[in-house]
């Protein structure tokens, strides 16, 4: 049986091939009634739309550089980020080469950029030392995109999770549940994601008219061997906004040692949706970072650069969503400022 063409449909209905083409493509110029007729006839005759515009083949080779600190220590958040980036790249017909830096090396400079292995672009996942980043951006002959961090001094494309509004929304969950004494646990070393999340927490307090109490802000401490722990003070708020699931995990264990249970005695809202282990009470209510979208956005941005885009560097932040868990207890109380 020879292939049915649009001309066949046109002849069958007594209209022009132009009309059939436009009808099938959903363009204007065809009445709804006629479009229906054409579609039905196409079905009836067994018409298959073989017309597919071939995508521009990119076939770029993308280098992915990750610091050894993230890959060997702590959670596998960065492994997953790498996975998703490689996947996003391959969806766009690009190849990826992974390089993990030696964490004991003072200077982190990708071998991918030196030598003869040619890459067309570079994605750096996770913050690296400022001096190393400066050198990379200044000497690289290919475009560079930063994933999950950025540097305000060095002009480079970056893709971030939305720390500010994400933590704001996580803290809102606590306020919605009636809490008015809300503390914050975060990492404050240098300038990291933790800082923006701290301000997201402050935004929620300010907009809701809740007074900020610096005594309720704390961060992790380290043992001489470098293990993190949390000192739980006597005077605790009723809820804590925590800047990462990792810290929440340590907090929950520290609280349990003092006989304080979540969520009965204290509620927690967290960030990341990336827990190393399951907790005794269930799951954390947490803000989930959309890693897929971050990876896709970074790859997309890099492809644009590799194609020759010369716009000034862009910082994109990617929205996530709140994942409801079991770590927040509703408390009864007068709501001071009604949020519409």
């Amino acid at each position, binding site marked *: 049986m020879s292939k049915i063409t*649009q001309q066949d449909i046109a002849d069958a209905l007594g209209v022009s*091939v*132009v009309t059939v*083409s*436009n009808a099938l*493509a959903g*363009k*204007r*110029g065809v009445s709804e009634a006629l479009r229906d007729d054409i579609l039905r006839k196409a079905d009836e005759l067994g018409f298959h739309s073989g017309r597919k515009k071939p995508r521009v083949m990119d076939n770029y080779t993308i280098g992915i550089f990750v610091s050894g600190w993230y890959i060997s220590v702590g959670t596998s958040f960065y492994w997953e980020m790498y996975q998703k980036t490689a996947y996003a790249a391959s969806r766009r017909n690009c190849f990826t080469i992974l390089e993990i830096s030696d964490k004991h090396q003072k200077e982190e400079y990708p071998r991918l950029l030196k030598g003869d292995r040619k890459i067309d672009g570079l994605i750096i996942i996770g913050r690296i030392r400022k001096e190393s980043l400066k050198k990379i951006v200044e000497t690289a002959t290919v475009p560079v995109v930063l994933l999950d961090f950025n540097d*305000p*001094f060095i002009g480079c494309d970056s893709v971030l999770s939305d720390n*500010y*509004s994400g933590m*704001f*929304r996580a803290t*809102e969950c606590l306020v919605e549940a009636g809490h008015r004494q809300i503390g*914050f646990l*975060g990492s*404050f*070393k*240098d*300038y990291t994601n933790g*800082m*923006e999340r701290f*301000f997201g927490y*402050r*935004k929620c307090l*300010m*907009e*809701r*008219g809740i007074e*900020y109490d*610096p*005594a309720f*802000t*704390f*961060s992790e401490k380290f043992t001489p061997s470098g293990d993190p722990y949390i000192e739980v003070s006597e005077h605790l708020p009723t809820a804590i906004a925590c800047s990462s699931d990792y810290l929440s995990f340590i907090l929950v264990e520290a609280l349990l040692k003092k006989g304080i249970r979540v969520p009965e005695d204290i509620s927690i809202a967290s960030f990341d949706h990336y827990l190393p282990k399951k907790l005794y009470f269930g799951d954390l209510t947490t803000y989930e970072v959309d890693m897929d979208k971050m990876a896709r956005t970074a790859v997309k941005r890099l492809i644009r650069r590799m194609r020759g885009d010369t716009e000034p560097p862009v*910082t994109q*932040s990617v*929205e996530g*969503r*709140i994942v409801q868990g079991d770590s927040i207890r509703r408390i009864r109380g007068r709501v001071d*400022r009604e949020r*519409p």
Partner: protein
Amino acid sequence: MKLADIAEKSGVSIVTVSNALAGRSGVSDEMRARIIACADELGYRREKVKVEVQEEMLYIAVLTSEEKKSLLGNEDLFMGCLREEAVRCSVTISTGFLRSRDNGHAPDISWLSDRRNIVRTDGILVLGELPEKSLRSLADYYKVPVVGYGFANPRVNLDFVMDDGFRAMRRVVRHLFELGHRDLIYVSEEVGHDRYLVDRLLGFWNALYEYGLIESVRIPELMRNPEYGTETLLRRIQEGKLPDAVVCSSDERAASVVALLEGNSLRVPGDISVTGYRAGRSEESGEPYFSSCLIRLDLHAARCLELLRRRITKGGSPDGICPLENEFICGKSTGAHKD
């Protein structure tokens, strides 16, 4: 002379010729130009050729909430930009006010279809704060895409477009940092609960940490809010410990700061730099007085319409909050730091 002749001459199908001459999508610009040139040569009637691609006309209802003026007084300017942009991208705008009702029913917009020239409503743009219940019922009841501008409610699954005041401050601080300033003070209207003012204040503090102008405190219990406000500025002037620059939450505020400084015999930018924040419609000509963050309302308007068009024609789930970056305009109120 038929389309078939043009098709043969330009080496494409009749369908492509038809679409090209009618201004429909699906034909590249070069191809369209080539086909039009061939058509001309063959003597095809020029009046029938639509050179510009016409997008389908969309009907958008722009509803302003009467509840609160949340665009900080820029509603008129924004509406002006929106109308201009609508003409450019085949959108017909109808406007109205929303009086939200607490009983949870959708705000009454039946009047929209009562007007004679309103064909239909493909999408809704909401300006200004709207209670959660009303927002939800608006979206559910009218079953068209809804985009909110100038506010955001993360618990309702819609697109919200807003100015990114938090990140904007980073540009300001960077500009001052590059001029050599290190000691910055923030002056604002009463922040209260206003989300725009909250974002700008916190964005400023965040930028101070980012650029190392405040040391990150390893023991957060020692973290205190940096002092800000007109009283702080006055005190510093009286103590003779002038800051390098004053960052203001708006141009109006910046103007009153300049007046205050000049009243104390201080020159701007000679002795102290001042920055502001304002909304405008496009790249400004000439050199403005204030170095400010500029909210490009024309770009915001374009973004709102583009987003609505995408949701209406292609669907897709809402992206949630979309903070839009603004620009930083250099003016005369900031200058290099003098030792």
